[in-house]
């Protein structure tokens, strides 16, 4: 029975009769079970109130709500005023018009109404005027707790403190009398406990309403200074009248005649009475209950104090009465011990509970009060208040953070939307008071020059946001003012807002909010539906990009309210599909939700989700994609990567600024990151879906940014986890990228590893083949050092087939991995002059090796034959070594060149001529003769496939010719090789485990079939390590770290339906200028700076699923989501099928379903 009829049916009435509201039963002595707030209303009715108004605020709201319900049938004029100042002035005007008036608000509102409040006592009231200012000790629903009494006394306004519902009724009724007799407004100050406690209340008689009319009296009603000075004296006279009235009222009353007395007011007075009765202390302790703490009749109080020798003052918050008591004792030289806050027996903050008061009574007065022994404290998770499921504010905050990122400051305001505070929406950097969402945003923006965002609801906007916005418009502040219009004052219980009213059960617009904003002078005003994320994000993005003030109105009625009034129409939109329209709830498809295609390999990314990570993820999805498109299981970049690196994962981490997490993802799959991010052939960038939209994401530059960031840290922020050693020993022959990667991987698996190499230093081709302008030596050495730090032993200057024999290795180790690569260049036979005449012919490997990457003996005119990476490397090395002219000659067309694209482009940029579709025919005395060729069969690359084109012969002058037409394995290294098979010039291996037919011998890298790239070689090294582990320790142990799956060049990287909204272009790293390049081996390509890296990372569209995504839970924060085991779920009970989560779910896993009621 969550629903109970709104009209509070009388219990006694039979249900067939027309219900009479129990509050208006006009029978003296009638008892009803009502809330303290309702008792206040009843008291006002009994006093004949004719005008009621207020602004809702917990705990006062039921007062105005009850008036709203009863006023029409009683003929009382009522309004929800737009703010407390207006309300107070309206009530005062009614008083001047000769009517009894009441105005209700919470304590905060009284301060807002402070300006008129200070002058009303001067002018004086005519009809009795009561101001209900509900207090909230312990800040249960407020940003502060305040004691209104000092303010009231400063302004000469009497204060009444009810402690029970019955007192609330009686004091309210009395307040009108007091006001009328003293011509002062009277403040009634109930606290949360009174307002929200339901108790039996006995009614008095209802009094007829009366409106006497306005009487002109300028000397009183117009407080110009001359009048005001005279009126000031009248204020004092009025206060004296009030004092007298209070003395005679019966609301200052004592029970008992003991020498010990408790002086108490409000709820504590009621608690004291209960405790004294329960402890049977009525005779030994008397109780002086003050229904009114101000203005106290002092002579009466002195008389009371003269009767006693001990007093305990019990009042919540400030020692207001206590100080009066102390002063009177001092002034009258009374020998009374006064206990209370000043003696430390009671605190000056928070609500007083019976236990606290009982303890003070015990400590100060020796009353026998034994508090219960507290049970052991059990921490219970807090159910933090959160925006409801389907709350439109959630969409607005989500979209705003999405568009602005984490660095922009958000200022919030008072209302439901305050709950945007903290995780996960994180939408309140500061909060002050009604309307301050805009002023805080404006003030910070004007002071620091940052663009800021301010939020407030429609009711708050009308309350006090309008002047704040006008002020910002006047100053042209660079900010975004967001008005979250849900058409109702939801926080305090769905009171009407000026923006809408209910007509025939439907919400009808009343004040045109956008019109008001435009009329204030705002030029850029956009109204969006916050449940339509794409539109809302776009509006926020536009506002972000536009300098000056933008106003965004997010308009959607509160769904709890519409449900309550039965207005079903508004919940229908927005929907993405017919299916969604019929949905009653949403559900999560866990095959999509936690599936990223890495399950088979045990979640290689191994990354626990972090907030920032998901934020970047979800943003990319909801924002980059114009239309929601289900992601592919594995992003094309990862599929194409030989190492299966989770690119979208590290991009998201970079975008969110979490570089350590990005590094962890990279290091988990790549043991030579510093080198690879400089020499990789980047198949990922070819596969990137963004390539189809504008330019691929600069994946390699991103990786390099992270790795260089990590290298720059004092301590490298990643350390691999090694399995415990198990005593098995593997020999790895060849310390190139493949051998090093395999050695590292074997160490992680607990193997002892010795790496042999013919060179004195590890690195292989990276050391001897890749020039320093691509890969500086210190960078390579960092990678090598990290690998050696895991315990890999390196033995240099040992050559397989020389002083190192396979048979011996097999004998001495549990397994041997051969990774010596292709160390012989293919040779080219060219006819020409003998002896010293004609150009010198050198092979590329030898040339690059002799250079050690930084300069070799080079001629003036160099021709390089070949189109692969060693051709380009040789040409560029020749240029840097002093060659005046370098020409590359190759059979391939430009598009067919196997070298890395960027390398080709850079070579061309440096002035290297590239002659394609030519063949070297012979040497001449001063050069080399080339002839144009054409393929016999188009699209096939094979030297025999080309035929010369007659008449295209020409001689290119050259004194050095570098031959770079490919490499082969040096088979001599394997001795007789009787136990190894060869296929196509490579060692034959099992394609899964890379085992050779010889037991315990494995082969990887260029020695085995592969793609001939550094990255590909590393992948085979990792695979071979796994293969060895399988052979040594079995599948189960080995499969705990599966190898990267075979790379798949993704043909399906074009994703129909995927659109980019953000058109930010690709960021480019700095490059060495051309002059410097020609004369040095300094690194050509630099590292992205932090800002560019984050911007570039944010270009990633996260087009693959992510198994670690929990964006719905951690980012959106809808209470309908919960986690069951490890899986996010949607609660059918709470989901109202708004469908907003489905719009951004990065995995496209949230689906509408129809559930039968």
């Amino acid at each position, binding site marked *: *029975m969550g629903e109970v009829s709104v009209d509070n049916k009388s219990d006694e009435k039979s249900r067939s009769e027309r219900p009479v509201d129990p509050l208006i039963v006009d029978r003296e002595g009638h008892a009803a079970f009502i809330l303290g707030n309702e008792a206040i209303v009843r008291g006002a009715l009994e006093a004949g109130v004719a005008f009621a108004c207020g602004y809702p605020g917990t705990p006062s709201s039921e007062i105005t709500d009850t008036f709203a319900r009863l006023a029409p049938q009683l003929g009382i004029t009522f309004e929800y005023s737009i703010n407390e100042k207006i309300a107070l002035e309206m009530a005062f005007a009614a008083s001047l018009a000769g009517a009894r008036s009441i105005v209700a608000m919470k304590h905060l509102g009284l301060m807002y109404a402070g300006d008129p409040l200070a002058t009303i006592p001067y002018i004086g009231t005519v009809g009795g005027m009561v101001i209900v200012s509900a207090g909230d000790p312990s800040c249960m629903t407020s940003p502060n707790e305040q004691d209104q009494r000092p303010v009231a006394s400063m302004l000469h306004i009497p204060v009444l403190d009810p402690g029970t519902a019955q007192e609330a009724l009686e004091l309210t009724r009395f307040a009108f009398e007091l006001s009328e007799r003293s011509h002062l407004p009277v403040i009634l100050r109930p606290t949360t406990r009174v307002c929200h406690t*339901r108790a039996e209340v006995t009614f008095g008689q209802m009094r007829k309403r009366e409106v006497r009319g306005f009487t002109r009296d300028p000397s009183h009603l117009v407080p110009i200074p001359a009048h005001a000075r005279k009126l000031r004296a009248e204020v004092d006279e009025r206060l004296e009248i009030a004092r007298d009235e209070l003395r005679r009222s019966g609301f200052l009353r004592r029970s008992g005649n003991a020498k010990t007395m408790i002086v108490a007011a409000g709820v504590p007075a009621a608690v004291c009475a*209960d405790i004294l009765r329960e402890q049977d202390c009525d005779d030994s302790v008397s109780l002086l209950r003050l229904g009114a703490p101000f203005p106290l009749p002092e002579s009466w109080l002195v008389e009371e104090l003269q009767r006693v020798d001990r007093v305990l003052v019990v009042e919540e918050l400030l020692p207001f009465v206590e100080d009066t008591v102390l002063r009177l004792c001092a002034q009258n030289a009374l020998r009374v011990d006064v206990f209370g806050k000043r003696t430390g027996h009671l605190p000056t903050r928070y609500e007083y509970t019976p236990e606290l008061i009982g303890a003070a009574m015990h400590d100060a007065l020796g009353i026998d009060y034994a508090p219960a022994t507290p049970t052991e404290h059990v921490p219970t998770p807090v159910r933090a208040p959160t925006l409801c499921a389907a709350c439109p504010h959630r969409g607005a905050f989500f979209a705003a953070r999405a568009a602005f990122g984490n660095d922009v400051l958000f200022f919030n305001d008072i209302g439901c939307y305050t709950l945007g505070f903290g995780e996960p929406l994180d939408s309140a950097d500061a909060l002050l008071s009604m309307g301050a969402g805009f002023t805080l945003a404006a003030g910070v923006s004007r002071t620091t020059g940052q663009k800021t965002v301010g939020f407030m609801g429609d009711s708050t906007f009308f309350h006090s946001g309008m002047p704040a916005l006008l002020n910002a418009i006047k100053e042209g502040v660079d900010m975004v003012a967001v008005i979250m219009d849900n058409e109702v004052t939801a926080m305090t219980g769905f009171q009407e807002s000026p923006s809408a009213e209910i007509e025939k059960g439907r919400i009808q617009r009343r004040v045109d909010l956008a019109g008001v904003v435009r009329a204030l002078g705002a030029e850029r005003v956009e109204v969006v539906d916050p449940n339509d994320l794409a539109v809302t994000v776009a509006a926020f993005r536009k506002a972000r990009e536009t300098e000056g003030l933008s106003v965004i109105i997010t308009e959607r009625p509160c769904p709890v309210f519409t449900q309550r009034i039965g207005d079903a129409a508004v919940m229908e939109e927005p929907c993405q599909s017919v299916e969604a329209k019929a949905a009653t709830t949403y559900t999560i498809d866990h095959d999509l939700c936690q599936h990223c295609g890495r399950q088979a390999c045990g979640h290689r990314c191994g990354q626990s989700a972090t907030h920032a990570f998901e934020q970047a993820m979800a943003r990319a999805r909801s924002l980059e994609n114009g239309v929601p498109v289900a992601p592919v299981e594995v992003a094309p970049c990862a599929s194409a990567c030989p190492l299966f690196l989770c690119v979208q994962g590290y991009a998201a981490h970079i975008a969110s600024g979490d570089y350590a997490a990005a590094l962890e993802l990279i290091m988990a799959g790549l043991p030579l990151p510093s080198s690879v991010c400089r020499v990789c052939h980047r198949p990922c960038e070819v596969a990137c879906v963004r390539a189809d939209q504008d330019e691929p994401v600069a994946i390699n530059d991103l990786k390099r940014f992270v790795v260089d960031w990590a290298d720059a840290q004092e301590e490298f922020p990643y350390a691999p986890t090694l399995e415990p050693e198990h005593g098995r020993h593997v020999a790895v022959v060849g310390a190139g990228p493949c051998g090093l990667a395999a050695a590292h991987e074997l160490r992680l698996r607990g193997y002892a590893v010795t790496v042999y190499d013919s060179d004195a230093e590890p690195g292989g081709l990276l050391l001897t083949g890749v020039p320093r302008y691509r890969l500086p030596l210190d960078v390579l050495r960092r990678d090598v050092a990290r690998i050696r730090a895991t315990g890999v032993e390196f033995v240099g200057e040992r050559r397989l087939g020389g002083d190192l024999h396979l048979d011996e290795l097999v004998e001495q180790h549990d397994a041997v991995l051969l990774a010596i690569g292709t160390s012989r260049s293919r040779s080219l036979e060219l006819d020409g002059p003998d002896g010293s005449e004609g150009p010198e012919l050198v092979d590329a490997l030898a040339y690059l090796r002799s250079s050690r990457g930084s300069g070799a003996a080079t001629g003036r005119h160099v021709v390089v034959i070949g189109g692969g990476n060693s051709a380009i490397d040789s040409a560029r090395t020749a240029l840097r070594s002093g060659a005046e002219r370098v020409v590359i000659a190759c059979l391939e067309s430009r598009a067919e060149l196997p070298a890395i694209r960027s390398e080709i482009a850079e070579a061309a940029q440096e002035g290297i001529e590239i002659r394609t579709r030519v063949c070297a025919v012979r040497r001449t005395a001063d050069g080399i003769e080339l002839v144009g060729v054409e393929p016999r069969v188009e699209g096939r690359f094979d030297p025999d496939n080309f035929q010369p084109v007659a008449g295209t012969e020409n001689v290119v002058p050259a004194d050095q010719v570098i031959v770079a037409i490919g490499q082969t394995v040096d088979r001599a290294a394997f001795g007789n090789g009787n136990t190894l098979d060869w296929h196509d010039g490579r060692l034959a291996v099992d394609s899964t485990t890379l085992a050779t037919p010889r037991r315990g011998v494995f082969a990887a890298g260029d020695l085995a079939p592969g793609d001939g790239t550094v990255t590909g070689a590393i992948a085979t090294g990792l695979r071979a390590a796994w293969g060895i582990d399988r052979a040594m320790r079995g599948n189960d142990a080995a499969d705990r770290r599966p190898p990267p799956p075979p790379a798949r060049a993704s043909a399906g990287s074009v994703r129909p339906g995927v659109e980019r909204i953000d058109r930010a272009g690709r960021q480019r790293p700095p490059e060495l200028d051309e002059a410097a390049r020609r004369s040095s081996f300094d690194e050509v390509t630099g590292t992205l700076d932090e800002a560019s890296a984050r911007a570039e990372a944010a270009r990633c569209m996260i087009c693959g699923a992510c198994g670690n995504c929990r964006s719905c839970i951690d980012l959106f924060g809808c209470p309908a989501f919960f*986690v069951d085991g490890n899986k996010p779920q949607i609660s059918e009970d709470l989901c109202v099928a708004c469908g907003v989560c489905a719009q951004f779910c990065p995995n496209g896993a949230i689906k509408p379903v129809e559930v039968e009621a």
Partner: protein
Amino acid sequence: MTFRVVIAGVGGQGVLVAARVLGSAARYADFDARVGQLHGMAQRGGSVEGTVVIGRGSTAFIGPGDADVVLGLEPLETQRALPRMSDRTEVLMNERPVALATLTQRGVEYPELGTILQRVRGVTERVHTLDARSIAERAGSPRTLNVVMLGLLAGLDFLPFVENALARAVDAQSPERLVDINRRAYQLGRESAAGTRGVAGS
């Protein structure tokens, strides 16, 4: 005599309605009563607590160890009321949890039902649990869970007044269209009392 009942649950479960009904029931039986409610900023899904104090007095406070009955509409919320329990407190608990929504991300996990029960039993042996949610569904709507719990309270006969008063209060506070369904829920709750007694002794 003062009889104090803490009603603990989650926003939307009808805690405050249950408190009001129990308060009216006391009045039907000619007892003085007060009903307090703490809902603060708790929107749907937040913790809500109602207190019903039956007998002479001025307030609806229930202090540490002072609850005669804890009517727990939800397990975790029942645990939250632990400080108000003593060894003589009768704890009536719906064993169907309302999940912790988004909080799980910060390492806050919903405790095991067994753990909650163990904690409650550490204070009082008088624990009565049932799957009130299923019973409410059987009555015709999960939203009658609060009435099922009131029915259980009546069935266990812990109240200081005749049970008829509570049945009457449930009727009186039901909107017309829900009278029958609430009566059914109340009855089913009342009948399930027999089944829960065993739990108390275990």
